[in-house]
């Protein structure tokens, strides 16, 4: 009885907290709602302030695909993001594995030097990289897109840090059983590090899908463009068709939102990454 009373008192004291959290949650979610509702309304209604969903979605969609290569951009974005994710996970997990489980003085020094690359801003490397890749004839290609992001200090650090839980004794046992070092990596390390791979995959996919500055530098051909580039172009004209624009934004956001809702835990782990 008293406990029940106590509990309701605690909840009553939390009322200001609830109110604050409801307001913040509403402000966080509302732009998403507005995006969806605007995508279903005619531009003129959106401008008039209509916020309930309308019946103009199909028309907006048709207008969108009429003058824009929507499926091409979606396909490009998927291709780039998937290739980047697969390669980045492979290269960075190999490196993290090597740095942590074979570590010695030399490797630790190399690792420290690599961390310095985290401080290098993208704008500083983009011009030399652009020149390098244009000499290599890699502009407008998936390789040009992914090359600077295959190996990142962040992902290497994440795998290195999480490898601390990997039992070194079993490596010794595996060697006695006749496994070579690479077999230890893909037969033992990879299955055991599934959670880290999942988190790394989510964060890499999101980053690749959402990239904008580098694609703008490297993908000069309209046929090679990505979704963020396509929707940015929708808004660059003198007048904006809000219904059409938000339909484009919706298409650009749906894949990452699905990833977010299905793999939210992994996404959060991917963000905090190496911080343990």
């Amino acid at each position, binding site marked *: 009885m008293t406990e029940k009373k106590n509990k309701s008192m605690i909840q009553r004291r939390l009322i200001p907290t609830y109110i604050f959290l409801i307001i913040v*949650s509403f402000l*966080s979610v509302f732009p998403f709602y507005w995006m969806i509702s605007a995508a279903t309304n005619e531009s003129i209604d959106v401008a008039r302030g209509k916020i309930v969903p309308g019946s103009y979605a199909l028309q907006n969609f048709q207008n969108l695909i009429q003058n824009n290569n929507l499926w091409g951009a979606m396909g490009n974005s998927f291709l780039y993001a998937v290739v980047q994710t697969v390669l980045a996970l492979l290269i960075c997990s190999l490196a993290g594995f090597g740095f942590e489980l074979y570590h010695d003085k030399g490797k630790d020094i190399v690792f420290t030097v690599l961390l310095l690359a985290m401080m290098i801003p993208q*704008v*500083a490397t983009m011009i*030399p990289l652009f020149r390098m890749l244009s000499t290599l004839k890699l502009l407008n290609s998936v390789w040009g897109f992914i090359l600077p992001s295959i190996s990142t200090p962040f992902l290497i650090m994440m795998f290195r840090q999480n490898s601390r839980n990997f039992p070194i004794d079993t490596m010794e046992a595996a060697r006695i059983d006749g496994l070579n070092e690479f077999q230890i990596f893909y037969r033992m390390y990879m299955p055991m590090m599934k959670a880290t791979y999942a988190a790394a995959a989510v964060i890499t996919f999101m980053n690749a899908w959402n990239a904008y*500055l580098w694609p703008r530098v490297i993908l000069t051909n309209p046929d090679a463009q990505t979704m963020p580039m396509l929707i940015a172009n929708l808004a660059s004209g003198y007048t904006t068709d809000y219904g059409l624009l938000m339909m484009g934004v919706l298409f*650009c*956001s749906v894949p990452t*939102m699905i990833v977010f809702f299905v793999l939210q835990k992994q996404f959060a782990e991917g963000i905090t990454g190496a911080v343990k």
Partner: protein
Amino acid sequence: MNNKKRMTLLQKQSAAGWGFLIPGTILIAITAFWPMIQAFIMSLQTGSSANMTWSEPIFNNYIRMFQDKLFLRSVGNTFLYLIIQVPIMLILAILLAQLLNNRDLKFKGLFRTCVFLPCAISLVSYSLIFKSLFATEGLINTILVNIGIFQENYNFLGNAASAKAVIIIALIWRWTGYNMVFYLAGLQNIEYSVYEAAKIDGANGWKTFWGITVPLLKPTIIMTFIMSINGTLQLYDESVNLTNGGPANATITMSHYIYNNSLGQGVANFGYATAMSFFVFIVVGILALINMKVGDTRD
């Protein structure tokens, strides 16, 4: 004999380790360190992409930079965003993490998902959404006119001060949940009993926040600070898509200006652009260093 064989085995293993880490290491060297060296060399040169010659005097691009009013304005804008947005966002993020860390709170998961949701959208997408919401004929104007705060629609993005405010609001919206995730992870490492003890001692919410949460989260706070500085100094997507640097370059950021000078508007001013980007690099480094030094003082 046996000992010798063991040594070679260890050496073999060490070599395998090197083999694992070399692809990633070489890639970082090629795509980060080598371009950085090239950027510095290029920053001492002049001319367009194909034929570049040494500047006269050699640091000419750097001298020019500090006389370029537009560049100085882009530096000012970027620092304005940094100084106003980052503290508000981080304090809000810590506060939300603290509130969501309460064991008695219901619907915790739902609130967390809502606050975290803005991270699910690309920077270009949310920039375009905010651009539309704050347009002269946008929803925010409609609401403000209807409830009588404004007499007529106001051109938020057409006025320097309000356009900057919109960028700051948008940034806070997009990144608060992101930083909150770090703090929530950090708070999980703090024993809940510490809070219970504080409660018994009669400390109120405000006191526990400044007395327990903030000091214990200090390493996390420093890290998020460094990351936010790094991110803000490289702002690009928002400047391009929300305001396009306007009105009249009033909201342009450093990265946006560098892009316009190199690959954006047909002026391949690579030497000058790399000099400016080297400046960004140095500022990022200095601020991160200060941050770590400040965070290191244990008292």
